């Protein structure tokens, strides 16, 4: 086995093991295993509409995946992405509902401002978590998670309170935005292509930042030895804040694209678990930037495909999350399962 092939062999083992565990779970739940997997594949890729829905899920996943690569590069467990998406969506909705489509600014500028506002929203939320870490010694797992719940509460309060539809507050979201403020879509489809293009651009930008710039190098230094980085005058606290800020801006942008390009309004739990799923995708890609888009695409297919399950087989749609978790866990196992040559020090 050559060194280059080793990760692929491990991935094959992980896939096989994940498949076996999945079959076990499906059989235990009393579901027909192969029919279930067929429904998921069909729902994610079976038609043009399904492929578009998959692309719509792929966009925030890739944006958040790129965002998380930056924070993982600084050894941060940023699980606050979910809240950063929500905050981005809130800022975008606030900016766009204040915009006047009839007069004033050209519509393109309105949209650009809306997306910029979404990035700002995510940035603020991520910096809050980052400052709690650097100045308040609160681990980012707790601040991120707490802020996720806070962002969700804020969005619910806005939907049911100040931004409610005229006449009645509804859990189906705020009033739909003016059509002039939607991201341009091709051929009358509900989804815009601007989102995926921005996501790919953001991913390339993040990869360049991490692999080809001095900033990326300093993040690696902070990750590997924070004390040495301090001695070198790299100011790890500042780098951590910068990494959090970039991550938050990208995650916020994902929220803005969900508002302006897909839902065209603010809905409850708009972040749709993309923040958590993106963490699993980054863990599945295990640090490889090349593998990340593939992992995101695969998870997008699973997520979209599982939406059909309650209708066609009366199973819960959380099967997608189960499969994603199994896959990451089996990959962890495949990576570590070698003959016990290198024992861990007690």
């Amino acid at each position, binding site marked *: 086995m050559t060194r280059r092939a080793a990760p692929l062999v491990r991935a094959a083992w992980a896939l096989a093991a994940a498949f076996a565990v999945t079959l076990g*779970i499906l059989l235990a739940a009393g579901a027909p295993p192969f029919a279930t997997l067929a429904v998921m594949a069909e729902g994610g890729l079976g038609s043009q509409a399904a492929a578009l829905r998959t692309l719509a899920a792929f966009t925030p996943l890739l944006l958040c995946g790129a965002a998380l690569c930056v924070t993982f590069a600084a050894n941060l467990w940023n699980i606050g992405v979910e809240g950063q998406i929500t905050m981005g969506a809130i800022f975008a909705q606030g900016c766009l509902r204040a915009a006047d489509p009839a007069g004033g600014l050209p519509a393109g500028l309105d949209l650009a401002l809306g997306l910029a506002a979404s990035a700002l929203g995510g940035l603020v939320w991520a910096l809050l978590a980052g400052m709690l870490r650097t100045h*308040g010694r609160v681990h980012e797992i707790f601040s991120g998670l707490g802020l996720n719940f*806070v962002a969700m509460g804020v969005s*619910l*309060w806005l939907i049911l309170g100040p931004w409610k539809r005229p006449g009645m507050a509804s859990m189906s979201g705020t009033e739909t935005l003016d059509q002039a403020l939607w991201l341009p879509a091709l051929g009358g489809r509900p989804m815009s292509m601007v989102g995926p293009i921005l996501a790919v651009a953001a991913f390339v930008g993040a990869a360049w930042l991490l692999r080809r710039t001095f900033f990326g190098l300093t993040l690696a230094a902070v990750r590997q030895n924070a004390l040495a980085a301090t001695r070198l005058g790299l100011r790890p606290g500042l780098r951590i804040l910068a990494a959090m800020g970039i991550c938050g801006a990208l995650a916020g942008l994902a929220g803005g694209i969900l508002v302006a390009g897909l839902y065209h309004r603010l809905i409850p739990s708009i972040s749709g678990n993309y923040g958590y799923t993106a*963490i699993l995708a980054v863990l599945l890609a295990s640090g490889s930037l090349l593998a990340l888009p593939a992992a995101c695409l695969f998870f997008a297919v699973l997520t979209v495909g599982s939406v059909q399950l309650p209708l066609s087989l009366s199973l819960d749609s959380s*099967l997608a999350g*189960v499969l*994603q978790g199994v896959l990451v866990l089996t990959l962890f196992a495949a990576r570590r399962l070698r003959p016990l040559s290198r024992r861990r020090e007690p």
Partner: protein
Amino acid sequence: MTVDYASALVAAVFFAAAPLMLAALGETVSERGGVINLSMDGTVLFAAMAAFAVARGCGNPWLGLLAGAGAGAAIALILAVFGLFLGASELAVGFVLTLFCRELAYFMGHGVARQPGPDLGSLSVPGLSDIPFLGQALFGQSPVVLLSLAALGLVWWFLARTRPGLVLRAVGESPRAAASRGVAVRRVQLLCCLAGGALAGCAGGLYSLSVKPGWGHPQGCEGAGWIALAIVIFGGWKPVRVAFGALFFAAIQVAGIALQDALPGLSGALFQIAPFPVMILTLLAVNLRRSTAFREAARRVPLLGRLMPRSAGGAPGAIAGALDKGF
């Protein structure tokens, strides 16, 4: 506010605190042995589903609670195998397990969602429940409260007063030193991880069988495991303080519900998320108080010295800095 109303509030606090206390005590046992079990939230949720499904199947809620404990231990076993024997990162595996168990619970529990099922009922200890004010809260309402207090006593006694408890603490403080004294470090860590998982599983069972009875796609106990993790840090890894932490967070939940009646203008969603900002603020206060900067400031300003933690405290040596770090 009448005395009756106040004692009803106290009773509600103890009732809501019971599962939080069990989960936080479970994590305390695990972390005192040097294993960070980040999968608490998923464990509690999955165990809640397992407990409800089994209780509904057999018609006996106590069997359900046992099944919940078993489910929690099984998840802890996965974590231990990955973290202790395969050398994977405990934080990464724990986090993936949290997400995985949550989704698995919703998936496997689809069949029993929104179905009626048995619950643990109420229990009144004759004599003790007549003690004024606290009697009704502790001994007069539910076996759940008694269970949580029993677990507190047991965990405290085990950690502070028994030989195996001492071994567990030694392993958590310094695995190397314990190993050189002939302790089988990984076996001890495996056992404490399993025990902690079983306690967290019991907490899940208490949710679905008593505190928030039933099962559904949002069950109602989501996020409780994360609060439990924060309570362990808040309580300085000491069982009795951890129990007070659980009571504190339960009091916030109860106050939210009580205030909802008083201030109907504010949405219920805001009160549901109240524990989370409080969680961040308490961690901020606790960690700042333990920081070197605060110690130095306290040396100069006498008034601040009164706020200094009396004992060195802090995390067990093996996991120091993993969840309460700074620069």
